[in-house]
């Protein structure tokens, strides 16, 4: 594959204790008051790395405008195909913790929470124990359960309050009315790591990577039919082939790549395709939280999509009627198609159910599941026609 000079910012290697971290990056670049870091973040053009890609400066400003805000670093990663937040939390915890401190200063928060999966907790506890005198606000570690919806913003707020990590109805935005009713910044841990770097090295440095509209780097979790599945860092706009090349390239001819994770979309494996919001928008996709799954031609896209839809239907929180009733029906419809049930009404029924569940829940779990199903029907339309005729390109017998 292409010999690329890989950029390493948040994934930097080396000693991960506080002394090593301080030796590499220097002290925390305090700004001296609420709001003062926000223009720098805006100039850098940092966006959230948790999936939605919202401009971080606007979120910081919204929270900073309220009284007695709190900050929450969100390291929950219930998405089975994603591993980047865990890699970051265990490999470079001090960068995340620095970002949490700087975010707290930027919004005027007196305390912070770090919401992280069980696998990262011992490492984070050790890192926090090194930081008396380095930090200015106390940070409470909150364990995130390993469920798909646990990282959704309102579920994070519920868990930090001591309740189950379930999404909530949010007639008011979390930035205004979050943990115990106070303005709350819930920020993905990778976003915080980028924040800690750009606060030190400046917006100009930050923009040396990525595109003018989508500056910086992002962490990608690459899996499926690649030789070296794992977490890699790349600039926004990186060609798809180059990103797969970082994972040592495909192990077989590919028919599609799932981009954006289980709530994402299937794309044809065009190696020149720029991985950025602008580059993927024409295909109804987005980099999301940087999840890529390579699907070989030997597999059936409908079988794989039905497996994912079935998983997602089982990961609902069980709270909202359209999701509770609609997702199992939707998953079952796709599963029938995957198993070569030749009822010609199946694709239309899957599309109808997708539209029916969209926008009708406390969180976007139904919307994301519908997006995955719709994308599988359009990207694998050839396969759909074959299945309705009782055949399959993968040449395997029905499950």
């Amino acid at each position: 594959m292409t010999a690329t000079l890989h950029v390493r910012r948040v994934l930097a290697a080396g000693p991960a204790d506080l002394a090593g971290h301080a030796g590499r990056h220097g002290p925390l670049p305090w700004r001296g008051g609420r709001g003062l870091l926000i223009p720098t973040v805006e100039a850098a053009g940092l966006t959230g790395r948790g999936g939605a890609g919202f401009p971080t400066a606007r979120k910081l400003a919204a929270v900073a405008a309220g009284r007695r805000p709190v900050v929450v670093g969100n390291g929950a990663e219930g998405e089975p195909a994603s591993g980047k937040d865990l890699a970051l939390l265990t490999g470079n915890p001090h960068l995340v913790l620095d970002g949490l401190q700087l975010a707290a200063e930027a919004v005027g928060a007196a305390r912070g929470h770090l919401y992280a999966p069980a696998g990262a907790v011992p490492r984070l506890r050790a890192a926090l124990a090194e930081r008396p005198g380095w930090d200015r606000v106390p940070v409470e570690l909150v364990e995130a359960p390993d469920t798909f919806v646990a990282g959704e913003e309102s579920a994070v707020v519920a868990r930090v309050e001591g309740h189950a990590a379930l999404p909530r109805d949010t007639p008011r935005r979390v930035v205004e009315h979050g943990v115990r009713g106070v303005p709350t910044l819930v920020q993905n841990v990778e976003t915080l790591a980028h924040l800690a770097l750009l606060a030190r090295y400046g917006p100009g440095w930050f923009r040396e990577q990525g595109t003018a509209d989508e500056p910086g780097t992002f962490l990608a979790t690459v899996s499926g039919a690649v030789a070296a599945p794992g977490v890699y860092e790349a600039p926004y706009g990186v060609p798809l082939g180059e990103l797969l090349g970082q994972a040592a390239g495909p192990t077989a001819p590919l028919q599609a790549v799932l981009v954006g994770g289980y709530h994402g979309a299937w794309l044809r494996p065009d190696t020149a395709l720029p991985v950025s919001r602008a580059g993927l928008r024409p295909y109804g996709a987005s980099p999301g939280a940087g999840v890529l799954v390579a699907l070989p031609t030997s597999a059936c896209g409908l079988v794989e999509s039905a497996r994912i839809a079935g998983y997602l239907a089982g990961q609902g929180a069980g709270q909202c009627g359209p999701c509770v009733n609609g997702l199992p029906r939707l998953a079952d419809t796709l599963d029938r198609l995957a198993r070569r049930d030749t009822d010609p009404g199946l694709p239309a029924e899957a599309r109808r159910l997708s539209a029916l569940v969209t926008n009708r829940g406390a969180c976007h779990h139904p919307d994301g599941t519908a997006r995955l199903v719709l994308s599988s029907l359009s990207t694998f339309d050839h396969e759909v026609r074959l299945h309705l005729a009782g055949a399959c390109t993968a040449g395997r017998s029905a499950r």
Partner: protein
Amino acid sequence: MKLHIDWTACDGRGLCTELLPELLDRDEWGYPLPRDGNPEPAVPAGLDAPARRAAAQCPRLALRLVP
């Protein structure tokens, strides 16, 4: 004014769809289905009164009017 549905509270009793048939259809499980496809359907001025009644009388307190 818009109608906000708390989907975690709604269990599809259907009172709102009877009071506001212009705004809300029912899906096959009985849950309200905004006819305009919006997560928070806009309430036209003429439907102010039934919208307020629907919000006040929802047995699950799952409806509210938001600006």
